[in-house]
């Protein structure tokens, strides 16, 4: 696509922004649900169940939302024999001034990355607010702020919102923004489905919130059937929301894998791809293949609820084990969809701020793929207490413990990189370093839980909850913030405030560890998850956990203040403030629409810090070098 002068184009109803899209979607939803779907309406008279009607209303709402955003404009035009004009392409790629492009369908991967970043933060704040309410309730041993049903709704909203958010927390903002830059591509492979992944992601969180209007859902994030078959109408919101998130993960995965396979610049051989890109690719492969299973199993629950099939109802020839097996076949790769990208981010940051090549680069990359592969063979450790055939337990115990080997190699790679390095304790480095003890606690507690005797004792307790949070929050979220502090200067050209950043780091680190170490103890003392009541002897520990949780919750405020400060008033920095080698730092700040003035010729790896003699990673203007008679492409 040739870059031309910015174009002006007025929005129409069908190329409109997110607010119009949401308004039309809500109106369509209300029309189906309340005008023709309730008492006396045609759908009601036809005999559709309330579940069927609600699911239909959600589907109509989703289609209207996508139509108004403009997702169907191009396909319809294509089918009718037309093609996109250059003006339309430029408009879609955001070649217009103003911030309006951030609120509508845009195909530039950098704008989509920014849209993801702010949506992730929005979802994180909403999910975090739910967590604060949960901890508020648990400051006392009896339900005193919320009814048990409301408490379960809070738990469900918190867990699913955070899972949806975390599944895109690194792939969404950083994968979309930086992977093309890191491999020297002008764009993503499929810009439209990249945009689709974001807009479905946004909608999934919003649909999830509508469960509140239908009495919530009692199942937490796992949505176990047959409880899910029997739950209130809010369960349908869960099905649609998680289904949309799954679809978003699939299309995002396809897009990123294809981009890295086919869009690399000349010279970007496999060993010159940085760890972040590899990690995002591994997670994308998992998302591409595992999320369809999620959608399959959610569809089955939807059929049970809407059409009265009995797939998960034992009395009707169904089985709850069927649900558990299918859900966890998705569910465990899902954990690594969340965790593996974090490995890549922290390894890259460690190398930059230690000024050393990444130790054991190839072993670390192979380990990421090893983790991804093994994650398909461990799902039944979630079923140890569900009646799994005892003979199968040792295999799944062993396969689960096997995951600690590739994970250990990644830790070794990190330690080797730090060893004798010239370490700079910058903000990104602090968060990257904190990732390791946090994830270590999560990993070691995971090894405990993979042992059948321990799991039988601890299943469903707060120990499991603490383990899960150490992996996902202590790991993924710390890596996310490391990435924000590391890469945002590239987006904005401005630096964060160091003091605010350090306040953010220390309050978050202390608050997080205080909360979840205490909750691990609470779990060892026998407190089950998802219950608002507990015996009085657990009061003190729960109260301490709540106090630390509030500190953790408060840590977001210095971050938000710093984000605003960094974007608006931050000190201006040059194009490569960290003196990093990888390709994304070699282009202008912010990068142009097609990322580089010319497709770069990559001639070295991203980690040759301190290597003498060292070449720059890329020749950024190969045509000029060739014209001058230099040795472009010495490889």
């Amino acid at each position, binding site marked *: 696509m040739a870059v031309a002068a910015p174009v002006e184009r007025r929005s129409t109803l069908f190329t409109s922004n997110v607010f119009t899209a949401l308004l039309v979607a809500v109106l369509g939803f209300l029309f189906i649900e309340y005008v023709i779907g309730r008492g006396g309406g045609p759908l009601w008279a036809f005999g559709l169940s309330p579940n069927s009607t609600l699911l239909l209303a959600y589907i109509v709402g989703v289609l209207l939302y996508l139509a108004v955003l403009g997702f169907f404009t191009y396909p319809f035009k294509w089918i009718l024999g037309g093609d996109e004009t250059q003006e339309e392409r430029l408009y879609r790629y955001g070649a217009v001034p103003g911030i309006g492009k951030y609120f509508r369908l845009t195909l530039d991967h950098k704008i989509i990355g920014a849209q993801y970043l702010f949506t992730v933060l929005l979802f994180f704040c909403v999910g975090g607010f739910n967590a604060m309410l949960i901890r508020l309730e648990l400051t006392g041993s009896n339900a005193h702020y919320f009814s048990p049903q409301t408490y379960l709704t809070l738990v469900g909203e918190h867990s699913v919102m955070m899972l949806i958010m975390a599944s895109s927390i690194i792939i969404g903002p950083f994968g979309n923004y930086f992977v093309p830059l890191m491999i020297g591509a002008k764009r993503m492979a*499929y810009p439209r489905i990249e945009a689709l992944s974001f807009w479905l992601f946004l909608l999934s969180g919003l649909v999830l919130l509508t469960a509140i209007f239908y009495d919530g859902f009692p199942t937490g994030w796992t949505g176990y059937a047959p409880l899910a078959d029997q739950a209130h109408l809010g369960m349908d919101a869960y099905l649609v929301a998680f289904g949309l998130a799954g679809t978003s993960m699939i299309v995002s995965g396809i897009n990123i894998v*294809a981009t890295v396979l*086919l869009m690399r610049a000349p010279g970007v051989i496999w060993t010159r791809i940085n760890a972040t890109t590899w990690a995002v690719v591994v997670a994308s492969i998992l998302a591409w293949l*595992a999320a369809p299973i999620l*959608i399959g199993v959610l569809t089955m629950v939807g059929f049970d609820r809407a059409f*009265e099939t009995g*797939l998960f109802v034992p009395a009707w*020839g169904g*089985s709850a084990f069927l649900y558990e097996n299918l859900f966890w076949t998705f569910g465990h790769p899902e954990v690594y969809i969340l965790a593996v990208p974090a490995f890549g981010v922290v390894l890259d940051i460690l190398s930059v701020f230690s000024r050393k090549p990444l130790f054991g680069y190839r072993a670390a990359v192979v380990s990421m793929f090893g983790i991804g592969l093994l994650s398909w063979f461990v799902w039944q450790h979630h079923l140890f207490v569900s009646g799994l055939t005892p003979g199968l337990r040792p295999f799944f115990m062993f396969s689960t413990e096997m995951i600690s080997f590739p994970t250990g190699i990644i830790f070794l790679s990190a330690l080797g990189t730090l060893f004798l390095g010239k370490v700079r304790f910058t903000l990104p480095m602090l968060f990257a370093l904190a990732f390791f003890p946090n994830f270590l606690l999560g990993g070691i507690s995971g090894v405990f839980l993979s042992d059948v005797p321990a799991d039988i004792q601890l299943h469903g307790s707060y120990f499991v909850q603490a383990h899960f949070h150490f992996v996902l929050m202590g790991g993924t979220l710390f890596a996310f913030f490391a990435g924000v502090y590391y890469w945002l200067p590239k987006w904005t050209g401005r630096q964060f405030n160091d003091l605010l950043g350090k306040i953010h780091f220390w309050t978050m680190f202390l608050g997080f560890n205080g909360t979840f170490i205490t909750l691990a103890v609470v779990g060892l003392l026998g407190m089950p998850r998802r219950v608002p009541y507990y015996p009085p002897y657990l009061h003190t520990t729960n109260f301490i956990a709540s106090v630390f949780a509030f500190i953790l919750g408060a840590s977001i405020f210095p971050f938000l203040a710093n984000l605003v400060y960094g974007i608006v008033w931050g000190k201006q920095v040059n194009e490569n403030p960290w003196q990093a080698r990888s390709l994304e730092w070699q282009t202008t700040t912010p990068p142009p629409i097609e990322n580089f003035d010319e497709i770069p010729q990559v001639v070295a790896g991203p980690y040759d810090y301190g290597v003498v003699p060292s070449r720059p990673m890329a020749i950024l203007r190969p045509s000029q070098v060739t014209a001058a008679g230099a040795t472009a492409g010495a490889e």
Partner: protein
Amino acid sequence: MATVNPGASDALDATGTTATALARETRSLDDRLTLLQARMVYIALAFGLACFWFGLVYLQLINENGMWKPPGVHQPTLLVGLFEMGLIQASGIVYFWGQWAGLYQRKFNILTLGLWVAALLGLASFGFHIYELHQPGFNSLAPPLPGAKYPAVHVSQLQTGYTSVFTVTEGVFTILLGASLFVLFGIANRARLGRFAKSAVAVEAFGEFWGFMAAVALLNFLALYVQPFFHSG
């Protein structure tokens, strides 16, 4: 095993290698991306559909409460299943005929004809699917349960493992078939307008996908109609 005619084999290998290399060189990046996208989509769909096939095997094996397919529960008519599946296979063959003529012999009028006929055959199969889901005939001997809560949902007349798996598998396949036909009619329309003279990679990519759909239809037929014939629970 010794090679009977090593020269011929080498020549074939060389031809294959050259063809692959030429394909890499002659295909534009956009063409390669389109083909890759189609392949990745149907692989993802295969993982999703595998849930239903796993459900079929699992529920049939455990036969919970003897309710996989208790006496009195009938399969939908084999003839309808045969029509559904056969029409899609025929559609796939016709599509391939049109694709071959258009892409490799440059006979674009045959391409257009092939695509339209394939789309119409697919539409006929879609119609049979809708009919079958509306009147599955699981329990043709017994009257509908008198207390059926939501009469529009005919599958609720009797809940068993088989009827549940059948409904979700065929239901989802019908939705997929409808969406695919929408694209197929679009491609046929573009062929009618002569839009594939320069690049027909969309025809090629959708052809692969349509082949996948034909394979799924065949598998569904074997799993839902033929195989339960021999296992009544």
